[in-house]
């Protein structure tokens, strides 16, 4: 019986890449935001708004690359709301993130109704090109983001300052770093990255937008950041793990292996819980996460 070899074929590998792509994009965004000290559970909503904006942009500008650009801008601007409330007003960052998620879920469906007078899904638009069979151009870009984020944090002046804001905002401020400005920048970058994740779901894979299509990927991406101990490559590994579990389940379905789909689909969530419960002990969040520099 050559079932094992049959099971682990190129399709499975590509499926893992495809499923990891949105997670990697969003997680890199979440990582930058968290490393600067701002908690970001808005990833889900940011991703949703990016996914939708990509379709709208492509629809009106007749070019998926322009659609991608629109998505990135919209993602950044949506993240600005989170940034203003979290940094400018110092609201509870979880509360604000929840608001963004609700706003994005409502606004996207509202606008579908408004633009196309149909409920819950957009028409199909042109997609970004594939670089290989079933591998969209955004897939390699996503994976390329990981070393870029890594070197940004490790070797750039800005990266060092960002991490200083996340570790000890008062200390960063005391050496003249504009903590708020950097945090605004990083939260907006998280919006840009999350929007790329969303755009992959629409103009990189499905070709259209349906309501709530992100289906919790933003939350999974955040879990990957934590699982990956706020390190770019650790986070990448976590994303691949989560994507792998999902791809495995789909492969099992198509190969007709008699395992309950629901139980298999539950696996990534169980893994995440175990990971967080088991791993968080040894891991270290940025020490200044959620903290502000002193008033005035």
């Amino acid at each position, binding site marked *: 019986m050559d079932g094992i070899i049959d099971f682990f074929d190129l399709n499975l590998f590509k499926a893992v890449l495809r499923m990891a792509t949105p997670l990697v994009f969003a997680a890199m965004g979440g990582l930058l935001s968290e490393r600067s000290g701002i908690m970001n559970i808005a990833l889900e909503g940011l991703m949703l708004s990016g996914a939708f904006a990509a379709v709208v942009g492509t629809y009106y500008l007749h070019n998926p690359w322009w659609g991608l650009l629109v998505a990135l801008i919209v993602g950044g601007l949506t993240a600005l709301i989170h940034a203003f409330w979290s940094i400018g007003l110092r609201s509870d960052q979880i509360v604000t993130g929840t608001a963004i998620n609700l706003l994005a879920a409502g606004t996207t469906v509202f606008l579908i109704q408004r633009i196309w007078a149909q409920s819950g899904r957009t028409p199909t638009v042109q997609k970004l090109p594939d670089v290989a069979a079933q591998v969209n151009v955004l897939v390699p870009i996503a994976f390329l983001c990981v070393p870029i984020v890594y070197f940004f944090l490790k*070797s750039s*002046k800005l990266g*060092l300052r960002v991490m*200083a804001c996340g570790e*000890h905002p008062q*200390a960063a*401020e*005391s*050496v003249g*770093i504009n903590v708020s400005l950097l945090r605004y920048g990083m939260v907006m970058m998280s919006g840009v990255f999350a929007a790329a994740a969303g755009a992959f779901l629409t103009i990189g894979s499905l070709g259209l937008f349906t309501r709530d299509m992100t289906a919790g990927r933003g939350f999974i991406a955040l879990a990957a950041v934590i699982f990956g101990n706020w390190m770019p490559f650790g986070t990448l590994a976590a994303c691949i793990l989560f994507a792998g579990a999902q791809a495995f389940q789909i492969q099992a379905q198509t190969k007709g292996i008699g395992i309950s789909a629901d139980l298999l689909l539950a696996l990534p969530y169980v893994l995440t819980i175990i990971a967080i419960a088991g791993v968080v002990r040894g891991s270290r969040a940025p020490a200044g996460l959620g903290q502000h520099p002193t008033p005035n």
Partner: protein
Amino acid sequence: MVVLTRGRVGRRVAWIVTEQVEVPQPQMAVEMLGIVKRFPGVVANAGVDLSVERGEIHALLGENGAGKSTLMNILMGLIHPDHGKILVHGRDVRFHSPRDAVDAGLGMVHQHFMLIPRFSVTENIILGSEGPGAFIDRQAAEERVAQTAAEYGLVVDPRARVEDLPVGIQQRVEILRVLYQDSNILILDEPTALLTPQEVEDLYRVLNALRDAGRTVIFITHKLREVAAISDRVTVIRRGMTVGTRVTADTTAAELAELMVGRGVSLRVDRTRAHPGEVALQAFDLTMKGRGGVNALDGLSLSVRKGEIVGIAGVEGNGQTELVETLAGLHIPESGTILLGEMDITRDDPVERRRKGLSYIPEDRHHRGLVLPFSLTENMLLGNSEIPPFGDGRRIDYAKTEEITRELMERFDVRAPGPETSAGALSGGNQQKLIIARELFREPAVLLAVQPTRGLDVGAIEFVHSRIVAERDKGRGVLLLSFDLDETLDLSDRILVIYHGKIVGEFSGERVDRAELGLLMGGRVPHGDRVGITT
């Protein structure tokens, strides 16, 4: 009376005269004129003037809460003054951020170090002054750090992680950072608070070297001894106002103390002799692991009798916090026994200890002693909620609690609109009175008082001190832990010295040899053998 001279600083004596004379024009490095800063409910600076000459060590002396730190935060651009003028090297400046201050040649060593524990020494030092370009040249930076360090004899490994370094070395990193930024005016905010006497000596040596190299040092302190030991001139501020500037060599401790406190003070608390009775609290051989596997408490034993105040003296971080929290029941020790009177309370939880007659004034009013958003009534329940008359373990009698709160507010002069006021709205003094009222309400057999006057004004301090002495006179045992050595000496009938989680010496409150005490606090045993250990 102590006549103050500078130059009692270790080996270096001859440096002063030559260097001082070489500065020709008495130009001012820093001038702050009429600085006013109000915070909600407080005027932190009510018109401060400060003039610091180039190339001197200038002490800024004042009590806790006098406005020293606010003033320096203004100078560093962290806080913006409401009024006033700042000149640096004669130029009128207005700083919008610490960056501006650093660019003007100012650098600050903060009381609570502004270091990032997870960063390396070099990363901490270059942060904010990384040099040109978008990327960091780590190797070049490390070399430059090492070079700067060597220049001033500040030995430190540029690659070490800051969190792995002892406190004294961490401070060195802070000083190095200021030097690396090429600041010619250094501000040190209470730099000796966390240091051992030996580390303090090292610090003095470094500061003198810096002054010799022509830099200006502003040294913030509330300790007269330090003013005498290190400064050339001293400016005293009280309640947010400058009350005088003196040449250190021409003044006396008594004069400075009077300037600082505002009247001829008796440096000792007014109290009678203690009449200790039977043992109220005993601890035998307490051991507890601290961070990093080192024993925070290492076989510590002590006893407190009824009717006496026992003070714990020691440099911060030698197990004081662990000791008090273990006695209070916040931690269970790994080994050892705690007796309250005859009762073994080693394994009791805090509530049970309270029930048996132990009270505890914690060090941190805001994060331990009170729940700031709670009303005064709700704060009265803290630690009491399961004990009659407040509650029965299931329900709480809020009406009764409010009645008691109202009564205690009257008795302890807690000034607030009413029991519904939230504790966060009270001044520090009133917050502390509220805690003391709560802790004394049950008439405890033993009172643990930790930093009971931290951050309070003079009036409140007197109130707290007289209360503690009054409790002693009622026959309660008091264990006092204060990082203000003068307070410990003033209040205590007996002083125990703690070092590395052990009691290493004991003094009678009547007769304390400060030199010997200092040596013990620093872990060195005078006369070759150990002073008797109490049990």
